[in-house]
């Protein structure tokens, strides 16, 4: 008898019962009202803004710029900065796997069911959002060689040198591809004991002689590999790690795995938003960076 009562109590503590409300009406009505608000809002939106319909599809006329649907513009943006295999497939796959893996890594159930429950979580979120957005914008500007353009403009503007152009010895720092095209890789072959190492940096034989020669895999184009794969991937892995390290050591805001998850997830959201917005609003013809009012689509 006593044990029965105890189990019953444990199953549904009395105090918890008092904290509960009935789903009808307290939840069902909220759902109903929110559904009605959304229905009306979308009806009004649809009455005033028409879904786009351009000319009939024509495989022979390419619009410039051609853009993917907006939710894939983040990937299309990555495509401009690295090897397509990374941007289009590997990075999003890894991102989704990591996203799904969050609860298997952050296993503590402390602070669940409460907005920003951990001690410094709001600070971490704001900080991660700001720094990740700024870094992403900076990286996009760098790869768009905007610093070159602006430096030239400023130096010309001061009147010191009205013909100033970015020095050729700094060509490697024009943008990411500068690591490939801005360095004279042929001069970099060196000899060791009469044996020339890497005579041709653009076709480093990795394969076993006599086997099939896949030019991408077995004859490594090192400059392209460096600028389109090593540096972008190192950036995508390194910056989050640096950010976690800095926030932990210098700012002292990281107290648990949850805090690391907050930092990285917020950074991911920031990068997602920035790259999507840049792709949608700031990419003009030839995917050049342009202000939104200067974007014209031409058909070629």
């Amino acid at each position: 008898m006593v044990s029965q009562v105890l189990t019953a109590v444990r199953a549904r503590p009395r105090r918890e019962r008092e904290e509960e409300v009935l789903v009808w009406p307290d939840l069902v009505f909220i759902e109903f009202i929110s559904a009605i608000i959304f229905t009306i809002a979308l009806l009004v939106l649809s009455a005033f803004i028409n879904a786009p319909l351009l000319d009939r599809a024509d495989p022979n006329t390419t619009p410039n710029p051609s853009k993917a649907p907006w939710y894939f513009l983040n990937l299309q943006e990555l495509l401009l900065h690295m090897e397509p295999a990374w941007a289009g497939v590997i990075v999003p796959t890894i991102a989704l796997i990591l996203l799904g893996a969050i609860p298997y890594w952050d296993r503590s159930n402390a602070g669940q069911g409460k907005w920003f429950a951990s001690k410094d979580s709001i600070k971490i979120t704001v900080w991660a959002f700001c720094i990740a957005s700024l870094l992403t914008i900076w990286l996009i500007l760098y790869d768009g060689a905007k610093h070159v353009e602006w430096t030239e403009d400023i130096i010309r503007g001061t009147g010191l040198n009205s013909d100033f152009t970015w020095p050729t010895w700094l060509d490697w720092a024009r943008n990411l591809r500068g690591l490939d095209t801005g360095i004279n890789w042929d001069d970099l072959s060196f000899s060791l004991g009469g044996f020339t190492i890497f005579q041709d940096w653009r076709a480093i034989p990795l394969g076993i002689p006599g086997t099939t020669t896949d030019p991408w895999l077995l004859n490594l184009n090192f400059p392209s590999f460096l600028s389109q794969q090593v540096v972008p991937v190192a950036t995508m892995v390194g910056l989050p790690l640096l950010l976690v390290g800095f926030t932990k050591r210098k700012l002292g805001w990281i107290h648990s795995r949850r805090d690391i998850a907050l930092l990285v997830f917020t950074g991911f959201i920031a990068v997602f938003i920035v790259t999507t917005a840049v792709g949608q609003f700031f990419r003009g013809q030839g995917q050049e960076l342009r202000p939104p009012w200067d974007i014209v689509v031409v058909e070629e």
Partner: protein
Amino acid sequence: MANAERPPGKNFNDQLYDLLFKNYLWQSIFRTGYPNTPRNQMLVVATNVFLHLHPTRIHRTHVKITHTYCLGGLSFFMFLGLTVTGVLLMFYYVPSVERAYADIQALETNVRFGLLLRNLHRWMAHAMIILVLLHMMRVFYTGAYKPPREFNWVVGVILFVLTLLLSFTGYLLPWDQLAFWAITVGTTMIGSAPVLGDESKFLLLGGFEVGSNALIRFYTLHVIGLPLIISIFMAVHFWRVRRDGGLARPL
């Protein structure tokens, strides 16, 4: 007090109530009376197939709008709205390269409310993606993925991907320049996958370029294949919300 003083016999309201809700027809459909007593309110939720996704009672913090902002429910509501408008759109649309574009034009000009129908479908699709993303952020920032809800978070990530795929497959159907080139850009990205890239692209397009095979494949995936799959995952998602103890709550 009032009850004690009430004379025997029913007043008009009670008679009306009995007439409306205690008749044979009503009871055959709903089993309970109008949900105006706690007993009937719980019964209506428990016995109605649509409402029984809910528990009969819920913690009071969870009905605060600011806890969930209804984001998950609204994502589902967008799916329902997209299904309704999508079925109506199918009346007017034939997925062939010859007819698709003309059908959309005819829908916009010749069909009463056709333009509104298409606009609704498109904006609801965009709204669904945004709502799903916001829902994911809500779940993350409230720590609601934590044990025992780990797997439901994974199901949620899958639902996010399926939502994107549903939108992406629908994007081609109007067969205009926007659709054609967006899908060309998108599928070129898929084609750049390191191992099975070209094969995946060929499988998706039914050829090397976006053409009539791609249109029929995207259409079929959009109107039946992906909706079936996402429905299964949604069923699992909602079921697991209940099985894992409802919405997450501080310990």
